[in-house]
């Protein structure tokens, strides 16, 4: 069970890096130090962009913030560099949060241009302000003082920076392999599904920026005191694009990829001096070629090669034939129903309305679902079924009305809050996290650590690993109940459609919901899979979960659901037992038209 994989490569790499300076002349040692620093900045960028999916074109500005704050505090105000360093790093984190604020509202290329704009603003501030030394920058920055060690010597600097980098790489790898990294990647892959799995999207967007700032800030401080000269050119758009190239060429969501990308490009830039234009041409062309031909970079190409070379993982392209054993009920679900007590209301929707620019998707919809019931919601396409689910699960806010879950008013709560209140859902068009593996998809919903628990990464990293192991075991147990354990390590999208549907239901159950909303779970399933689904829905209910199903498949609805609500044009037109509803003239009219309804009624 690998969480943070330490193969034979890591110690080997450590030995090489420790011995390396012996073979380097003074200039090359200096270049080596620069490489290590850029590796830090690039890893930070890969955490923001590759993992968090936040287009951050201000990473070079974060690097510059760390360097300039430390430079100004030590050169202008005479602070001790060791005192200035934490202040500079904190300032960079703060700067990253400020630049990240627009990310709460805008994403993708919009965020790209906003952060790029702020980076341009920062570069212009450095060039024009007097306290930054203007275009000529700040020189004669004091080196880091260390008794007995001369830190103006590039060889000593190399070991100091290497040690810091080792710590940062360990932290990045820990983040990448555990809860925090998984939540960032889930958010990147599918924001809506991530929110519905209990992830507080705004916090994680800011957290992504914070991580980028932290890594860039540390690198900036060391840059200032090792190079001992800072100028606006170092932290401008050229550096930003260089960083971007490192991360893309290396592989966006790989810590090692970013490191390798940084090493290659900085080495190329500094060792091929005098050929700047050609080298720029080559790296520009490399970026274009990478995104066109190998969008996941060197890391992606490497893992593809590894997969091809290694012994094939035992998987089957379709569900195992043989005795079809319906999955066992998830034992982890708490028993909420006391058989003797009168049925309580699990969900109460009262006069809920939702309008999209004047178009009424829901008008005054009311319904009640008893705890432990399997409730069906049917209606023609466009009748507002999914919008109703979106309102209940907190993805859309209603314009009016009230939603109660187990007697508690939850109107207008956000999706992640609803998830944590025990409301889980699946989506009509399948929203798995495509680049996460099957087990990771389940773990995203299964682990319910609050945001503040991420402090563990700094204060008690070992406890993160222990929890991770427990979460993984629980996720694998849940997958075993769905007979999905053999594909646990596969990317979710590589599974056949029917199995992806199962993964989505497993993910929804992983959060131990008391109310499960299934949006067209039978769509795209073959007859055998539909029979499995019926049994599964009953078993989920038997374990104490109230289930609400939107479905077009009438066979499934009629045989599984105990009560139905029928929507048409955003209104409830009928409700009752399947038998009652199937005799309702209005329902027949909604589905088949007036004439048929009339004939049926006669």
């Amino acid at each position, binding site marked *: 069970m690998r969480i943070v994989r330490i193969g034979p490569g890591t110690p080997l790499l450590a030995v090489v890096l420790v011995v390396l300076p012996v073979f380097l002349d003074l200039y090359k040692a200096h270049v080596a130090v620069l490489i290590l620093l850029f590796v830090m900045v690039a890893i930070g960028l890969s955490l923001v962009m590759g993992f968090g999916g936040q287009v951050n074109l201000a990473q070079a500005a974060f690097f510059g913030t760390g360097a300039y704050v430390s430079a100004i505090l030590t050169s202008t105000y005479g602070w001790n560099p060791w005192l200035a360093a934490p202040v500079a790093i904190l300032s960079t984190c703060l700067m990253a949060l400020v630049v990240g604020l627009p990310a709460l509202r805008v994403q993708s290329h919009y965020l790209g241009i906003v952060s*790029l704009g702020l980076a341009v603003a*920062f570069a*212009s501030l450095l060039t024009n302000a007097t306290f930054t030394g203007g275009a000529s920058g700040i020189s004669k920055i004091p080196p880091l003082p260390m008794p007995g060690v001369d830190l103006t010597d590039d060889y000593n600097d190399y070991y100091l920076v290497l040690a810091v980098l080792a710590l940062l790489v360990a932290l990045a790898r820990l983040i990448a392999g555990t809860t925090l990294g998984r939540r960032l990647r889930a958010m990147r892959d599918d924001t*809506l599904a991530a929110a519905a799995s209990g992830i507080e999207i705004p916090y994680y967007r800011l957290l992504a920026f914070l991580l980028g700032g932290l890594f860039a800030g540390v690198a900036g401080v060391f840059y200032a005191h090792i190079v001992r000269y800072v100028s606006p050119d170092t932290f401008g758009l050229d550096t930003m694009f260089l960083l971007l190239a490192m991360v893309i060429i290396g592989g966006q969501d790989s810590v090692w990829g970013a490191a390798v990308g940084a090493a290659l490009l900085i080495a190329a830039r500094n060792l091929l001096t005098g050929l700047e*234009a050609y080298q720029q041409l080559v790296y520009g062309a490399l*970026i*274009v070629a990478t995104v*066109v031909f190998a969008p996941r970079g060197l890391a992606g190409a490497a893992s593809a090669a590894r997969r091809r070379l290694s012994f094939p993982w035992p998987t089957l392209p379709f569900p195992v034939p043989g005795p079809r054993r319906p999955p066992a009920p998830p034992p982890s679900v708490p028993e909420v129903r006391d058989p003797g007590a009168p049925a309580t209301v699990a969900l109460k929707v009262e006069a809920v309305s939702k309008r999209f620019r004047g178009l009424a998707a829901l008008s005054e919809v009311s319904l009640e679902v008893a705890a432990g019931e399997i409730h069906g919601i049917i209606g023609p396409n466009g009748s507002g079924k999914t919008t109703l689910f979106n309102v209940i699960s907190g993805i859309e806010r209603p314009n009016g009305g009230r939603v109660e879950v187990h007697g508690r008013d939850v109107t207008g709560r956000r999706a992640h809050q609803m998830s944590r209140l025990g409301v889980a859902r699946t989506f009509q068009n399948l929203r798995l996290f495509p680049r996460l593996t099957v087990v990771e998809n389940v773990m995203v919903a299964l682990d319910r650590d609050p945001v503040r628990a991420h402090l563990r990464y700094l204060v008690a990293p070992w406890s993160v690993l222990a929890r991770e192991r427990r979460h993984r075991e629980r996720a694998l147990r849940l997958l075993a109940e769905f007979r999905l354990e053999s594909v646990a390590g596969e990317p979710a999208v590589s599974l056949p459609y029917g199995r992806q549907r199962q993964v989505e239901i497993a993910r929804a159950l992983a959060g131990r919901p008391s109310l499960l909303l299934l949006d067209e779970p039978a769509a795209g399933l073959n007859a055998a899979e539909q029979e499995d689904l019926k049994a599964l829905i009953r078993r989920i209910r038997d374990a104490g979960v109230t289930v609400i199903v939107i479905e077009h498949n009438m066979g499934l609805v009629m045989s599984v659901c105990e009560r139905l609500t029928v929507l048409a044009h955003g209104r409830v037109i009928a409700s009752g037992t399947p038998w009652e509803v199937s005799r309702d003239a209005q329902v027949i009219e909604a589905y088949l038209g007036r004439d048929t309804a009339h004939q049926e009624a006669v």
Partner: protein
Amino acid sequence: MIWILQTAIGGLSTGAVYALVAMGFSIVYRTMGLVNFAHADVVMIGAYVTVTFFLTAHLPFGVSLLAAILITGALGVVIERVLRPLESRDLNLMLIGTIGFGIVLESLAILIWGSFGTAVPTPIPNLPLRFGGLVVTTYQLLILAVAGAVTALLFWFLDRTKLGTAMQAVAMDRVAATAMGVDVAASNALAFAVGSGMAAVAGALVGPLLYVSPGMGASIGVKGFAAAILGGFGSIPGAIVGGLVFGLVEAFSSGPLSAYSDLITFVVFALAMTIRQTGIFGERTVDRA
């Protein structure tokens, strides 16, 4: 009072250049969903080509400009062909792929024209015209006139010609357009050519105001792109308004605090986008569950 008018005129004339850049971005984006960061460097190439014909070959400015439009138009077709696999794909990849293409263009410019910039004289004598206390230069008027003419031409092309209408159809629904017999690939190539041609006009016009250098794309391109987003990405009227607003904000912030003009402009832009994320004319898109 006169200061406000004076600053506004300066802002409008640079704003007109930003609007041209923004329209070029938008026309490519709306037809093929490609966010083209290389556009900034197409502006730079357009400026250099104009300068080369104008100063080195001593051709009239208008002829140089036409040549630049044709050459960058052809360049646009090349970019479209190379980046075609990225159309409507992962936005991050698109962003980075087009930035990569921009880096290639910049390095080509360094190889061809050297890394130092060129100062360019204005194509017409730059005379100050006085209206009361107000001073307007002839070159400012020329910029506004050319930008206005190009914009009118673009609207005529999109609304009145068969090719333009087809391009609009592709923008609205690519599949339906294909079904109606529109050659989508050709239409996209044309959109790229038109967008790049407009970039050349912007580059040629801004040349005498700035210094023509391989790195000039960065500042004008970022502002043009930001203007397009501010106006509402993909909207042509939005691009015009966004460009003019950007020019004005920049002009007014550089009056009293010239050193901090970029800082103020982009912070204002970031705030504006945070408040209204779809820009001025943008449509809000609904993420369907």
